[in-house]
């Protein structure tokens, strides 16, 4: 009669809204300009990275400051697939995910020996080491970087169909393809995290986050759980990194391993939106983009504002903007908490 469920009315409404949004998103290139598509690509990829970092730090307690390692290695592996192996860029994106996964194994082996703050710095050092090593790779341009060759970018699978479908030029078609892939990736990553948190693994994660020792005592294999989260996050970050650089078609160690772009921004998005919720990064990325658009002409003032905003949020609303909204309205768009469902219990208080 009674069962545990994470299902709520708001949750079901969200699922329907997501489906509508995705369908609308797929059709969007027919009615909007290339500039809007590029902005949306940027928003979607940043959102993907934010969801992944939120999984790591907000749910897994793994505060990594070195996620740029996986963005960079993913992007470089994609470039290697295209330039050295002659793969199609879209197929080479998968190579990016694999390379990030491969890098994550030694990284985890090393970083999991470190606790708390040491872990954060350890991941950062590994990202630096990876960047410096990649900068030695002369076939991919060494320290100055390189571009995707013309012949590779001109015949990416699917772009011809997009060109005829929307009547756009080749470069715009490539943006549309990248945008669709980004849409697919963000839905897949967010969906996976949502599913993960509602599964038994999510319960174990919550237990570990609340109290490691207690979780261990009731049989949660903390080590394996952390490995799993770290590897999944790394692979997904690698895929995202590869996709980002398919769109830009130009790479350098500085850009691919940029701590500001791939970790600082991402952390700010999660913090401002609300850490430890799926809704938080979504709110955060919208605020981030709005700030970026509003302050685009003011150069470094924009980043300064972002940094100060993150400090203000940590001081005055540690659960972020979504935390404020959720506390006022009681709304949970992506409910992951288990509730007892069944007939009302009489006689209780």
């Amino acid at each position, binding site marked *: 009669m009674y069962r545990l469920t994470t299902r709520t009315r708001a949750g079901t409404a969200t699922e329907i809204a997501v489906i509508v949004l995705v369908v609308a998103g797929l059709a969007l290139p027919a009615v909007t300009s290339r500039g809007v598509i590029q902005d949306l690509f940027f928003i979607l990829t940043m959102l993907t990275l934010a969801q992944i970092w939120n999984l790591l730090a907000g749910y897994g307690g793994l505060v990594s400051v070195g996620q740029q390692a996986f963005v960079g290695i993913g992007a470089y592996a994609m470039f290697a697939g295209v330039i050295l192996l002659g793969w199609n860029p879209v197929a080479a994106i998968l190579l990016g995910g694999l390379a990030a996964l491969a890098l994550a194994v030694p990284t985890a082996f090393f970083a999991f020996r*470190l606790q*708390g703050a040491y872990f954060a710095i350890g991941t950062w050092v590994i990202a630096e080491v990876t960047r410096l090593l990649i900068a030695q790779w002369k076939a991919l341009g060494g320290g100055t970087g390189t571009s995707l060759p013309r012949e590779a970018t001109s015949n990416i699978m699917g772009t011809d169909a997009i060109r005829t479908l929307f009547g756009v030029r080749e470069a715009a078609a490539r943006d549309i393809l990248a945008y669709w892939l980004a849409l697919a990736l963000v839905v897949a990553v967010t969906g996976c995290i949502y599913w993960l948190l509602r599964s038994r693994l999510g319960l174990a994660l919550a237990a570990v986050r609340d109290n490691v020792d207690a979780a261990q005592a009731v049989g949660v294999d903390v080590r394996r759980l952390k490995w799993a989260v770290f590897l999944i996050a790394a692979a997904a970050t690698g895929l995202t990194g590869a996709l980002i650089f398919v769109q830009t078609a130009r790479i350098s160690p500085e850009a691919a391993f940029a701590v500001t772009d791939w970790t600082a921004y991402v*952390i700010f998005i999660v913090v401002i939106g609300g850490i430890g919720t799926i809704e938080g990064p979504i709110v955060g990325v919208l605020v981030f983009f709005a700030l970026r658009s509003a302050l685009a002409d003011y150069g*470094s003032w924009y980043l300064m504002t972002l940094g100060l905003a993150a400090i203000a949020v940590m001081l005055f609303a540690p659960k972020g903007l979504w935390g404020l909204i959720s506390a006022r309205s009681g709304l949970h768009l992506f409910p992951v908490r288990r509730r007892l469902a069944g007939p009302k219990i009489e006689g209780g208080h």
Partner: protein
Amino acid sequence: MIWLDTLVQGMLLGGLYALFAAGLSLVFGIMRLVNLAHGDLIVFAAYLVLMGVTLLGLSPWVAALIAMPVMFMLGWLLQAAVLNRVLGKDILPPLLVTFGLSVALQNGLLEAFSADSRRIPAGALEGASLDLGLVTVGVMPLMTFASAICAIVALNGLFYHTALGRAFRATSDDAVTAGLMGIEPKRVFAIATGIAMVVVTLAALYLGMRANFDPSIGPARLIYAFEAVIIGGLGSLWGTLAGGIIIGVAQTAGAAVNPEWQILAGHIAFLAVMLLKPRGLFPRAVD
């Protein structure tokens, strides 16, 4: 004798890194606070000294001496107004706040001073060197190393032989019981960060006199400093010096083989130590 020269130059470079790290080590040891803005605070202090030199026409040493109390106050305020509010069991909030501060500081400096490289003029000391027979060493690196040792001796003296140092250690052990002894942990933390900023100013003086700097170089200094602290072991200032020397020697040795490998070699030395001794070379017994 090239290897001996490499070793000596590396050790002297390690002095600079130890100086970067000493303030970090102090704060880290007392309140387990990870200040990700530490490198940017060093750069900030370097600009403060530079302004004293260019705007007021002071000598770098006098300018640094004036900058020290200013930095002490800023550190005290930062801790009292911001960091004390996010200190707790969860390491994430202070980490995120100092990360935000790091980015804000970098870009504030960029806005104020542009991305141009600057240098604190050191007059005749620049490029001066001493012939020690087997090796020739720069006067500036030698002074850096000596200053690092002086700073560590002074901090250790403070830590182990004064009432304030006793309060530091007691608060680090058990803040609640320290409160029962009439010690305000938050006040102690604010003073500790203030002192760390005085050391930061000393580090900034040498950073600015020895090489060019610009607003973007903070995070790299933070990493070197952190590597030195972690290699040395939490709470051990002499360990921090040893850590700095290991990074410095590794970098110099790496550069001797291939100039592009300088930074990489330092990081790899850090990773190697961490693999062998995850708690550092001289971990404190209690922790």
